[in-house]
């Protein structure tokens, strides 16, 4: 069997296993392992599994995921998070689809603390999903706003993928961070605009609840309820931007502050702790098993040299600049629908980066394009980590809810990519004018 045939067979098999209802992580692991067996034999091939499992599981990059989910779990199960939501619900009650809009902006704010989209979706989702469900919001609307809103976690700094991109390509992480801010805000506004439009057209999807109305006095009173969480955000953001903690450490400090808050309100019970543990474990274990086994599959794809052949093909077409980029992004989009992208990015970047920058595209700009691509991948089935995270928080979600809920956001992200192609300054202006010196 030729190498490209092997790649095709494995991807085909992966879809068969998904369809049969094998756990996503296990399906990825099986195809990865078969690829290794075929290429390298039992002893050597399977040695890769141990190496990849260990290096991913013990990677300091991923440590913020359990910590942020834990923080959110404490806020939720101690009841502190609910106070926040009551307040927010009152303030945004004038907006159509107000709570979904609030979720998107909460994600955007939390994205300034967290470098991970999974953590962002899980943290905000854990608190907001029960509230939106209680108020009768339509499932696709809830699902989409959180899955997509969560992806802002890697576009608005800090960002784990930007760190990986910066280290791999020797580009400034500070510049990447600055370049993500404007596109991040634009994307959040696009998402919010879509939700408002949707709620105007289909008011039943986002019912307005009497309890959320209330007068000026209620709105003022609710400031008191927001205070604890606002304090938490100020402490975490403040300690990060003053350099007391690194972005990874911010997650631990956030957890500690939420524990202290819960204790201060006399709500830090064994039950609260246990429920927070369970939320943490379920998200972390599910997500990390997928990341680990997807990395093994990506390793196989790297070994068969697929990326080089694929992108060589695109370059070989000899297209004009815009058509080349469109063709390239189309290929990436197909990959986004098929695979787990972070591990794919790690294997394709060394080939893709010299190629793209060689054609005169800006390295920082391309970093933002890659992050947007990762964001799309996070909400495209069958393997989209944010889909899985929200699915876990919303038992009984159907494939229809997922597709209907997230497709509009994919369209918006692709639109932003096109916009960035036409106006690269959207990303590049800020780093050029704010970077130190």
């Amino acid at each position, binding site marked *: 069997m030729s190498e490209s045939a092997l790649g095709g067979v494995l991807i085909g098999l992966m879809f068969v296993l998904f369809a049969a209802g094998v756990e996503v992580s296990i399906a990825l692991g099986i195809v990865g392992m078969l690829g290794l067996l075929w290429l390298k034999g039992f002893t050597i091939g399977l040695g890769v599994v141990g190496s990849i499992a260990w290096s991913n599981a013990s990677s300091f990059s991923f440590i913020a995921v359990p910590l942020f989910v834990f923080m959110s779990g404490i806020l939720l199960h101690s009841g502190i998070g609910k106070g926040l939501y009551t307040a927010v619900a009152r303030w945004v009650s004038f907006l159509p689809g107000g709570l979904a809009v609030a979720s998107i902006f909460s994600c955007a704010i939390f994205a300034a603390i967290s470098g991970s989209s999974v953590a962002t979706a899980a943290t905000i989702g854990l608190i907001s999903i029960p509230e939106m469900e209680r108020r009768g919001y339509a499932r696709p609307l809830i699902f989409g706003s959180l899955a997509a809103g969560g992806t802002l976690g890697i576009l608005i700094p800090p960002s784990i993928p930007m760190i990986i991109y910066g280290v*791999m390509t020797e580009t400034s992480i500070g510049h990447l961070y600055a370049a993500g801010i404007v596109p991040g805000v634009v994307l959040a506004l696009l998402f919010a605009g879509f939700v408002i439009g949707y709620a105007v057209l289909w008011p039943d999807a986002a019912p307005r609840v009497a309890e959320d109305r209330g007068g000026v006095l209620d709105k003022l009173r609710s400031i008191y309820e927001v205070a604890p969480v606002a304090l938490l955000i100020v402490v975490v953001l403040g300690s990060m931007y*003053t350099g007391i903690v690194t972005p990874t450490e911010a997650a631990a400090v956030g957890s500690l502050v939420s524990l202290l808050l819960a204790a201060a309100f006399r709500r830090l019970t064994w039950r609260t702790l246990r429920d927070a543990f369970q939320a943490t474990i379920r998200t972390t274990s599910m997500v990390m098993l997928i990341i680990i086994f997807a990395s093994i599959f990506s390793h196989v794809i790297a070994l068969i040299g697929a990326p080089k052949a694929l992108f060589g093909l695109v370059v070989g077409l000899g297209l004009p600049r815009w058509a080349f980029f469109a063709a390239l992004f189309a290929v990436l989009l197909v990959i986004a629908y098929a695979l787990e992208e972070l591990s794919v990015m790690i294997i394709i970047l060394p080939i893709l980066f010299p190629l793209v920058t060689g054609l005169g595209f800006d390295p920082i700009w391309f970093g933002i394009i890659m992050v947007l691509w990762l964001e799309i991948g996070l909400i495209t089935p069958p393997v989209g980590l944010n889909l899985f995270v929200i699915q876990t928080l919303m038992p009984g979600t159907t494939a229809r809810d997922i597709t209907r809920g997230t497709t509009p956001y994919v369209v918006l992200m692709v639109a932003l990519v096109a916009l960035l192609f036409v106006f690269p300054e959207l990303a590049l202006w800020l780093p050029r004018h704010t970077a130190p010196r």
Partner: protein
Amino acid sequence: PAGAQAKPVVWNLPTVAAPSYFHTVNYNALAARVKEKSGGRMEIRVHPASSLYPSAELIPAVLDGRTELGTVLASYLTDVLLEIGPLELPFMTGSVEEHKKAALQLRPFYTERFARQGLKLLSIHAWPSQQIFSTVPIRSVADWKGKKIRVYGADSANIARLLGAAPVNINFGEVYSALEKRTVDGAMTSATNAEPMKFFEVAKYLDYWYLAGAAMEWLVANQKAWDALPKDLQHVVLEALKETNLEEKEWQDAIAADERARKRLPELGMTVVDPPREEIEKARRIAQGAWDIWLQRTGADGKRALELALKALGR
């Protein structure tokens, strides 16, 4: 005709270096030459930027034969093969040239040690010198005191501690913002990172303490994989190494990168700090403590390695 139809032999070569870094460029040139000389019967796939294996997994991967070729980087010598790194001991060498001179003399020693682990040494290379970026100048041994310094391994942690600084463990990817926000006062890493990683924006000073004159990188093959390679292809690989002049080119590139970085720093608005010779001597004496720790860990093998290294350096 039957031979021409056969599937090409594919070997993998994972490396830590970024796609545009000189190591990657040179390895790609080697791969191209091998492909050409073998008439397409052998292909070497270079995997830069730790894309195949994360850095710490590189040595185990080539030891186990999970990759046919591999780069053993001195910074990751924490356990297996620890004794091949006497030249990387703190303040052992003071320039890439000095490192080169000693390293090439140690070839028989390296070859023997690698062979004992089932690896075939193909070529000896280096990364540019290890220095310190800092937000305040570190000119004397006294300046080290109380500084929070980002380190990358046990040896660099030992130097920092012995000199009175407080070692901090921070991911390479978070070093930029840690310097920018003053989470740390300084970071030990290669001076050549100043420009591509934009460290010059967040750290004003580059202190040339020459913690290591260079950091070695050995290109090795897994011996079993090598033995399984047809004789004529073995010949092709060896010839390609010679024809591309890989080893010499690698050293020249490392020296050039080091010099270029140094010249470029003032243009980028950085201040180059050259501590007085006697301060570096003082630091070297203090850092002997780190040598002792290394000697304890490597036993008789390390003792012999250190003797050979000192002899090669003419000390």
